């Protein structure tokens, strides 16, 4: 660093991203707290391990190939060019992926993107609770966190990404890039995995398996909101010169290097958060879980355009989005018997798709990014820059959701083929923790066969007594464990 302005800019940016990483850790404190709270006591410890161990796995694999994918695949490759220049600096064997006086910021950017990767993997986790094998989730989480989301980030969350340059795709705070993709991946896994024992009654009626600690679930969601601040600010470049040739004009920008202000996104984050909560409170009739989740869904439903919306637009769009995704969640649950423990497909998937599609209309004609030479956009601004448009964002939303759904559906099918997707039925009944670990609440005496779910569990357990066979469990839909398959 030789120039004083350059030095100050780099040091400020280093520190800025470094702080966002610290904040984003809170998302995962929140996820861990929340997931432990929503499961029954018999599953708490395995749930915690599953949620926690995916973090180092995504970290090391993001070092091995994730960061390189983002920097290499903006052109497709093969759509608007080959492997992008400069990607070599982000390969795991690059000398710049280590302490090096020739580079100050590679690792800090890497960490900011890594924390997005953790989030993508963690989103999938909650829906599969109480019956997925840890190994299966770790494989799925690694694929989502270190491969799939970062491919779509290279395509649609990069100033030179082909979706941005050709389609005019705009998704400033990752409604589709992270939430839509992770929601699609969650749906793909859920379809193969099947519901928890007891979730649906004999006539197909939906049963509410309560969180074992509603208050802790809400604290977890509050922590996720706190971490979301780090996520939001990490999606910006805090200071860069965007002036025309020969003129200096410093501004914060979005990920596409288009101008925004930290003031604007602060307003929009809080207003969309509020719109989502208020709508969720009404539509769920004050259900604490959905009211808190509504805040999250409200932010996600507006994140695509929160760099540019008016705060009141954000608030209203968030409320509409939350109303729709709430209704859609319960309709899908009833109609397709989908047991999404935390509503992740709705809160992330449906809200993410909604956010991307709406931004295409709301920001129609805005510049998406500075043009790359030799690439022709479908729609352009009067200056000849790729323009945001409804078609680009509608197709973009489908690409994001599909890029999560299709590969993970296939991976889940493959895992299930080897009996490695779901735990054995007897283990699911008795609990994931109890055979190998001391009970999480060893002195807790509150359990009673007081509702339909525990009565059903007891009946099924008696049917498989001394065999641990899934005899009575044949009626339970979903993936079959390798141990159950062997004993048939």
């Amino acid at each position: 660093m030789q120039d004083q302005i350059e030095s100050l800019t780099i040091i400020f940016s280093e520190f800025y991203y470094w702080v966002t990483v610290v904040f984003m850790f809170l998302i995962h404190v929140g996820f861990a707290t929340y997931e432990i709270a929503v499961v029954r006591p018999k599953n708490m410890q395995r749930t915690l391990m599953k949620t926690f161990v995916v973090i180092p796995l995504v970290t090391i694999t993001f070092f091995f190939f994730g960061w390189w994918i983002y920097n290499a695949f903006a052109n497709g490759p093969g759509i608007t060019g080959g492997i992008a220049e400069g990607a070599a600096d982000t390969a795991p064997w690059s000398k710049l992926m280590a302490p090096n006086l020739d580079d100050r910021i590679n690792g800090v950017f890497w960490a900011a993107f890594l924390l997005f990767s953790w989030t993508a993997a963690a989103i999938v986790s909650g829906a599969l609770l109480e019956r997925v094998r840890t190994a299966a989730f770790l494989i799925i989480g690694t694929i989502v966190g270190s491969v799939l989301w970062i491919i779509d980030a290279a395509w649609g969350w990069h100033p030179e990404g082909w979706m941005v340059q050709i389609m005019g795709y705009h998704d400033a705070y990752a409604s589709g890039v992270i939430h839509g993709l992770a929601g699609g991946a969650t749906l793909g896994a859920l379809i193969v995995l099947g519901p928890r024992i007891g979730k649906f009654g004999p006539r197909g009626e939906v049963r509410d398996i309560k969180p074992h600690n509603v208050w802790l679930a809400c604290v977890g969601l509050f922590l996720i909101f706190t971490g979301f601040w780090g996520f939001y600010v990490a999606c910006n470049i805090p200071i860069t010169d965007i002036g025309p040739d020969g003129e200096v004009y410093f501004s914060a920008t979005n990920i596409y290097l288009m101008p925004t202000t930290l003031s604007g996104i602060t307003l929009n984050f809080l207003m969309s958060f509020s719109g989502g909560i208020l709508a969720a409170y009404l539509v769920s009739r004050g259900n604490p879980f959905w009211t808190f989740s509504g805040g999250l869904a409200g932010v996600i439903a507006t994140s695509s355009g929160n760099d540019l919306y008016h705060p009141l637009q954000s608030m209203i769009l968030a409320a509409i989005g939350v109303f729709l995704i709430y209704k859609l969640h319960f309709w899908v649950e009833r109609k397709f018997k989908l047991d999404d423990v935390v509503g992740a497909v709705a809160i992330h998937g449906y809200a993410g798709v909604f956010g991307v599609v709406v931004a295409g209309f709301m920001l129609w004609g805005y510049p998406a990014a500075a043009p790359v030479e030799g690439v022709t956009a479908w729609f352009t601004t009067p200056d000849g820059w790729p323009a945001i448009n409804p078609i680009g964002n509608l197709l973009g939303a489908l690409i994001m959701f599909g890029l999560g759904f299709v590969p993970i559906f296939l991976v889940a099918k493959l895992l299930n083929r080897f009996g490695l997707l779901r735990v054995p039925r007897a283990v699911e009944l008795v609990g994931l923790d109890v055979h190998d670990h001391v009970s999480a609440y060893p002195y807790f005496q509150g359990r009673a066969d007081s509702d339909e779910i525990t009565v059903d569990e007891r009946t099924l357990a008696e049917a498989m007594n001394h065999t641990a066979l899934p005899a009575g469990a044949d009626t339970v839909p979903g993936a079959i464990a390798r141990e159950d398959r062997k004993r048939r």
Partner: protein
Amino acid sequence: MNTGVDSFSDPASVGALFPFAGSEVVLVVISILLWLLWQIRQTKVENQEYERALAIYRKVGTARALGKDGTEWLPDEAELTAAAEADQLAGETEKPPRTGD
């Protein structure tokens, strides 16, 4: 002897700060192998865990294990097994005589 940098008098010419610069490719290959081995080992350990759990549930009865919230303690397992054997014995005693006996 030094493993990398022996002077900071000209920072602009230092570049890589880590020791054994030039070994990066080998480090990456070893690390990827370690990751894959970890994943395989974790899957095996989890499979063994479920086999062990199912063996216990077959012995003591799934319903009894569910009622006890598990069998994590050896004394519990012994107690549950004894109860299961007593049940079995009682069942045999109470068996109705066959016709013609």
